[in-house]
């Protein structure tokens, strides 16, 4: 066991444990905090897979921006475990059955389909520069420049949509 393997297994264990914490905790604030920890563990996995820039983007965008938005809304609406809706037993049972059955099928499919790829993971560990920002930026602004611009249009429309939805009441009053 070298340091890479130990880090990998610890990160995997923590990722799954925190993800279970997200869906099991009654208090929505605890859910959000567990989700932030999950994102940090996933970022650790990205670093292990030579995607350093994406690890930082994941932390900044998810843990820094989206989760702060979630926390802000939860605190604005004053949610806690008392206001958490009661889940009914039948729904929970259906969730376990459908999720578990799909997971079993997925695991079986992965086990049976990837037979040719085991040998590919040894010689690539040293190619550490592929995820750095210089290579990513070069490709992003040449090959992927069209999806990049489409993403900017998507953000603009999402921003306008969020603002319109957020102030619907006052807009309706002035229209009447």
């Amino acid at each position, binding site marked *: 066991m070298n340091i*890479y*393997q130990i880090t*990998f*297994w610890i990160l995997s264990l923590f990722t*799954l444990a925190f*993800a*279970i914490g*997200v*869906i099991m905790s009654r208090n*929505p604030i605890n859910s*959000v905090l567990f*989700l932030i920890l999950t994102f940090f563990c*996933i970022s650790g*996995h990205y670093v292990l*897979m030579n*995607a350093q820039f*994406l690890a930082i*983007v*994941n932390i900044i*965008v*998810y843990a820094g921006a*989206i989760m702060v*938005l*979630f926390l802000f*809304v*939860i605190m604005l609406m004053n*949610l806690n475990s008392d*206001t958490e*809706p*009661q*889940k009914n037993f039948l729904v929970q049972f259906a*969730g*376990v059955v*459908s*999720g578990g059955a799909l*997971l079993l099928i*997925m*695991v079986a499919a*992965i*086990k049976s389909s990837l037979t040719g*790829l*085991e040998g*590919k*993971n*040894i010689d*690539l560990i040293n*190619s550490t520069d592929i995820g750095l920002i210089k290579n*990513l930026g070069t*490709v*992003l602004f040449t090959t992927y420049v069209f*999806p990049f611009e489409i*993403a900017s249009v*998507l*953000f603009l429309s*999402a921003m306008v949509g*969020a*603002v319109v*939805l*957020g102030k*619907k009441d006052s807009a309706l009053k002035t229209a009447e």
Partner: protein
Amino acid sequence: MEPGLYHLLFISAALFFIGVYGFLTRRNLIAMLMSIELILNSVNLNFIAFNKYVWADKLDGLFFTIFVIAIAAAEAAVAIAIIINLTKNFQSIDVEETEEMKY
């Protein structure tokens, strides 16, 4: 045991179905949105794992992940605006309460 593509695929499949289970069982709109974020992150993990272990000299998986993160940010903003509006109208974030369009 040397960790490789297999183990990452198992981890991301487990994350995906933890997200599916949360989406099906939680009745709280914000918790359902958080489950969707878990699902998106498992997909990101898959993309980066395949990018590293199968096509390590290309960057397509990384760019898919960047665009998934961008779309997740836009989706979260719009969904939270909708949730705030729903709580204004129904005084609850239980999905069972917001049934005006159901019948």
